[in-house]
């Protein structure tokens, strides 16, 4: 089939037409993550009949509903558990999970930890908007210190969760963080994550103008989007500055989010190891039994 080159063709191929336009607010970053994912899928040429999307609950978790492919919109925090089941039932399927910071790092945290630890074959795309957007702006565990939320009206005093750091420590095969404001590296990175065996995490810093931006005085949509340019730094640049920079430059980095690929390993995924185990036991089972006569 011919490679798609325009957004209009991409939309026709991948979107569930009747669902559009989306319910997302004006300036919300979720649609951008969807678009990057679709371009990555198109560049890989994956069969959409062999690709399944899963999500929990939240604005971000509505994304599978907009895609013309099989999808499972599950319960809050449980997308990874359902997805593990799908993969176990048919290991030939490609599994992509759209989840939010509340869904994945909050209520679903334990599922996330163990899927990453077990290197379950799936790609988790976690959209981090620092807030529970859908329910009107409760504090998310990823919210930076000082963030204002309905449940933190005087500013967040809790340490934010660095979900990429956690995934690296658990030995996930692929771990990357990006923000939605620049397309090219994220699309390439989603491609890498999708192709990777085992567990891939792609965290996307994305604006939620309605529940986070407004409350935290990040300004209008334009300014809110610029916040991501001013508060992120490529991991390569970060390392250079930490090594060769002045104290002043290093101090400036302190509050910035590092973006880039944090981990890229080649370990076998869970289902490869499980397949090997089954084969080994089958061979053993079929061996002629000695001793008992």
């Amino acid at each position, binding site marked *: 089939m011919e490679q798609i080159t325009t957004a209009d063709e991409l939309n026709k191929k991948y979107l569930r037409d009747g669902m559009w*336009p989306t319910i997302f607010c004006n300036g*919300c970053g979720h649609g951008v993550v969807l*678009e*990057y994912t679709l371009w990555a899928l198109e560049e890989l040429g994956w069969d959409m009949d062999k690709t399944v999307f899963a999500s929990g609950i939240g604005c971000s978790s509505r994304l599978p509903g907009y895609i013309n492919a099989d999808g499972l919109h599950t319960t809050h925090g449980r997308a990874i558990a359902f997805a593990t089941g799908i993969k176990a039932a048919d290991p030939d399927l490609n599994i992509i999970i759209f989840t939010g910071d509340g869904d994945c790092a909050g209520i679903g945290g334990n599922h996330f930890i163990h899927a990453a630890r077990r290197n379950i074959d799936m790609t988790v795309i976690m959209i981090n908007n620092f807030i529970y957007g859908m329910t009107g702006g409760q504090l998310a565990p990823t919210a930076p210190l000082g963030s204002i939320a309905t449940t933190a009206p005087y500013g967040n005093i809790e340490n934010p969760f660095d979900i990429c750091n956690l995934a690296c420590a658990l030995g996930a095969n692929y771990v990357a963080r990006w923000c939605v404001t620049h397309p090219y590296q994220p699309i390439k990175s989603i491609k890498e994550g999708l192709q990777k065996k085992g567990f891939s995490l792609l965290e996307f810093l994305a604006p939620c103008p309605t529940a986070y931006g407004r409350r935290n005085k990040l300004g209008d949509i334009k300014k809110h989007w610029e916040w991501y340019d001013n508060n992120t730094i490529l991991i390569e640049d970060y390392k250079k500055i930490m090594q060769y920079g002045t104290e002043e430059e290093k101090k400036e980095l302190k509050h910035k989010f590092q973006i880039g690929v944090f981990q890229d390993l080649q370990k076998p995924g869970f289902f490869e190891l499980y397949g090997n185990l089954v084969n080994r036991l089958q061979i053993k089972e079929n061996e002629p039994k000695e001793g008992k006569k």
Partner: protein
Amino acid sequence: MIEVKEDWCKGCNICIERCPVNALEESDHLNRRGVRPPQLKQQNECNYCRLCELLCPDLALTVIPEKEEKKPMKKTNLIPVGGKRR
């Protein structure tokens, strides 16, 4: 050429703000949501970089490089609404 799915546009103006050559502007009409979808300026230096297309949160934009531009189709101006009721 930039094709705009006008009813999908929510008016965030990200496309206009982020175009590297400032080629886009708000159009002079409102869509169904009451926002002004973007359009190419009369005089513009659009180089078909596709950044606006990739960043649009509502997937409302399609960039079509000049050489591949579709020929304008003839469309009737008749709209099947209105008329006198008896």
